[in-house]
C-alpha cells in the first residue's frame, strides 16, 4: 500500500468505527427521551427505570462516538490539507457550525443530563435529554451538509485555484442531502430500536425477573423499529432519483453494487419482518411470550449496523476518485509531504487505541444488558455517595 492507500484506509477505518457508534446514539437518544417524558407525565417508576437503563447504554455508547469523532475531525488537517486549501472556504463552514451550534451544545446538555439526576428539577432534567436529541439531529444535519457538498459541490464557484461560497442556500438544500438526512435518521432510529428489541429478547429468553420492564421495552422497540424502517426504506428509494442525476453510474462498480444490494436486501427483509411479524405479535404480548422467537431476534440485532456501514461504503466508494465530485481528486487532496512513516505510525496508533476501546465499549454494553436494570448506576439513588462532595462549609464562597 502506498501513502494514499494508507491515508484512505485510515479515514475509512475511523469513519466506520465512528458511524457504528453514532448510528446507535442517533436512535437511542429520542427513545430514551420519550421514555423519560412518559415517566415525568405519568409518574410510573418503571418508566424512569427504563430511561435510566437504556440511558446508561446510550451514554456508554456515546463515549466512543466522541473519541472517534475527534480523530475524524482532525484527520482533515492531518491527511487531507489539500481539501481545506481548495474547498475550505465552503466546506469548513458547515463543519464549524456543527461543532459550535450542535456538538458544543449536545455535549454540554448531555453532561447536565448525566450528572443532573436528582439534582436538577424534573422538567429541566427532561428538557436536557430533549436538547441532547435535538442537537444530535442538528449535528447529523450539518455533517451531512458537509458530506453532500463533497458529493455535489452546490453553492460554490471556482475562483482562481480554489472554491468560494456563492450560495449558502444551495449548500443547505443540496439534492444529495435532502433524502440522505431522513434516510440516515431513520436508519439510526431503526438501529436503536433493534438494540432494544435484541436486548429485551435476551432478558425475556432468560426468564427475567423484570418481566414488565422488558415487555414494555420490547413494545417501545417494535414501534420505534416500525417507524424507523418505514422512513429508511422510503427515503432509501427516494435517493435514487437525485443520485442518478448528479452522479450517474455511481452504483455500477462491483464493490458498490454488491454493498448496495446487501443493504437493500437487509432493508426489505427488515421491513417485511417488522411490518408482518413483530408488529402483529405485539397483540397480547405474544412476541414477549413466545420464547422460541427470542434467539432469532438476538441474532438479527447486528443487521442494521451492517446495513449502515454498507450504505456509507456505497456513498463514499461510489464517488471515487473524487473527494469533491468532479472538481478535486482524493489524490490531489492529500497533504503534500505526507510520508509512509507518518501515516503508518498514526494509522497504527489510532486504529489500535480506537479499536481496543471500541471492543471494551461493546463488552461494557453487553455486560450492562446482561446485568439488567437493577444494576444500572446512571442516576441510581442509593447510599450517600462517598465520592459526592459533602454539604458546603462555606456557602458564601460560591463561585
Amino acid at each position, binding site marked *: 500500500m502506498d501513502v494514499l492507500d494508507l491515508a484512505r484506509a485510515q479515514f475509512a477505518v475511523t469513519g466506520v468505527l465512528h458511524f457504528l457508534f453514532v448510528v446507535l446514539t442517533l436512535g437511542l437518544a429520542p427513545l430514551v427521551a420519550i421514555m423519560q417524558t412518559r415517566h415525568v407525565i405519568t409518574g410510573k417508576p418503571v418508566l424512569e427505570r427504563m430511561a435510566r437503563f437504556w440511558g446508561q447504554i446510550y451514554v*456508554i455508547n456515546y463515549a466512543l462516538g466522541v473519541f472517534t469523532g475527534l480523530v475524524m475531525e482532525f484527520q482533515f488537517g492531518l491527511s487531507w490539507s489539500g481539501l481545506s*486549501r481548495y474547498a475550505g472556504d465552503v466546506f469548513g463552514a458547515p*463543519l464549524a457550525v456543527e461543532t459550535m451550534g450542535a456538538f458544543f451544545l449536545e455535549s454540554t446538555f448531555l453532561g447536565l443530563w448525566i450528572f443532573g439526576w*436528582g439534582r436538577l428539577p424534573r422538567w429541566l432534567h427532561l428538557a436536557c435529554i430533549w436538547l441532547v436529541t435535538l442537537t444530535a439531529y442538528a449535528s447529523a444535519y450539518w455533517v451531512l451538509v458537509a458530506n453532500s457538498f463533497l458529493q455535489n459541490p452546490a453553492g460554490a464557484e471556482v475562483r482562481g485555484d480554489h472554491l468560494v461560497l456563492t450560495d449558502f442556500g444551495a449548500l443547505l438544500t443540496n439534492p444529495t442531502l435532502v433524502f440522505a438526512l431522513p434516510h440516515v435518521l431513520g436508519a439510526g432510529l431503526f438501529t436503536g430500536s433493534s438494540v432494544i428489541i435484541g436486548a429485551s429478547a435476551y432478558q425475556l429468553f432468560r426468564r427475567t425477573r423484570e418481566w414488565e420492564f422488558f415487555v414494555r421495552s420490547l413494545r417501545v422497540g417494535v414501534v420505534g423499529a416500525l417507524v424507523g424502517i418505514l422512513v429508511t426504506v422510503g427515503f432509501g428509494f427516494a435517493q435514487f432519483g437525485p443520485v442518478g442525476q448528479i452522479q450517474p453510474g455511481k452504483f455500477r462498480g462491483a464493490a458498490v453494487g454488491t454493498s448496495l444490494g446487501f443493504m437493500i436486501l437487509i432493508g426489505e427483509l427488515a421491513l417485511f419482518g417488522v411490518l408482518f411479524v413483530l408488529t402483529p405479535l405485539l397483540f397480547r404480548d405474544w412476541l414477549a411470550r413466545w420464547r422460541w422467537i427470542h434467539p432469532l431476534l438476538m441474532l438479527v440485532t447486528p443487521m442494521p449496523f451492517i446495513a449502515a456501514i454498507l450504505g456509507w461504503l456505497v456513498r463514499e466508494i461510489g464517488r471515487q476518485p473524487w473527494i469533491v465530485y468532479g472538481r478535486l481528486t482524493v489524490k490531489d487532496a492529500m497533504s503534500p509531504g505526507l510520508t509512509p512513516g507518518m501515516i503508518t505510525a498514526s494509522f497504527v496508533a489510532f486504529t489500535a487505541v480506537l479499536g481496543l476501546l471500541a471492543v471494551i465499549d461493546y463488552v461494557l454494553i453487553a455486560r450492562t444488558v446482561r446485568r439488567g436494570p437493577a444494576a444500572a448506576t446512571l442516576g441510581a439513588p442509593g447510599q450517600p455517595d462517598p465520592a459526592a462532595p459533602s454539604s458546603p462549609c462555606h456557602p458564601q464562597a460560591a463561585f
Partner: protein
Amino acid sequence: MDILWLGVFALLLIGYFALEGFDIGIGMLLPVLGRTREERDRLVAGMAPFVLAGEVWLVAVAGVLFGAFPHLEGETLFALYPLVVGLLVSWVIRDAGLWFRRRLDGRAWRAFWGGALCAGSYGLALTWGLALAALVQGGPVLTPLGVGYAAVVVGVFAIHGRRFAAWRAGGPGRTGRALLGSAALAAVPVAVPLAVAAPWLLDHVAPSGTLRVLTLVILPCVPVMVAAQVWVWRAFGRRARAGVGARVPSFF
C-alpha cells in the same frame, strides 16, 4: 468581521485552557492528591460534571479553525503532525479513563483506568506545550524551548487542578476568586502566543462571504452556548452540593 472571528477563536482557545486546565491538572495529580481509592473517586467525581462542558471548547476551536481559517487548518495541523497525533491519542486515553473507570468495581480495573486518566492528562499538557512552542518558533516539533514550555503548561495546569480540588472540598480561603486566579494563570501560556500570532492569523482569515454566513448562523447560538455553560456551573457549583443529588453516585 475578521477581528470578530479572531476574537471568537482566541476566546475559545483561552476558554479551553481555563476550563479544561483544571481537569487535566487533576488528572495529572490523581496519584498525588488521591492516596486512597475513595480519595481518587472523590477527586474525579468533583471534576466530572465539568469535563464534558470543558472539552467542547477545543472541539469548537477546531471547528472555527476549519470554518474561519481554513487555510491555516491544513497548514498548521500538518506542520505539527506528530504532536497533533499525540494530542489526540492522549485526549482519547484521558477520556476513556474517565468514561470507563467506574463501569466496573474491580480494584485492578479502576487502577488501570485511573492510570489512563493520569497518563492521558500528562500527554495533553505536554503536547500542548510542545505545539505552542513549535508554532511560535515556526520550526521543528521538538526543541529545548518546547520542552521548557511543556513543563510550564504542566505546571500551570497542576496549580489550577489543585486549586479546583481545594475549591470543591471547601474550607477557608478556598474561594471562587482563588480559582479564577488560577484559571487566568492557566490561560497565560496560550494567550501569549495568541497575541504574538494575531497578525498572522488575520492574514489567513476566510473570505468575507464565508465569514458572513458563519456569523449569521452561529451568532444566534452564542446566547444558548453561554447559557448552557453558566447552567453547568450553577447546577454543579458549590451551592448545589447538598440535597438528593448527593445520594446519586457520580457516573465518572
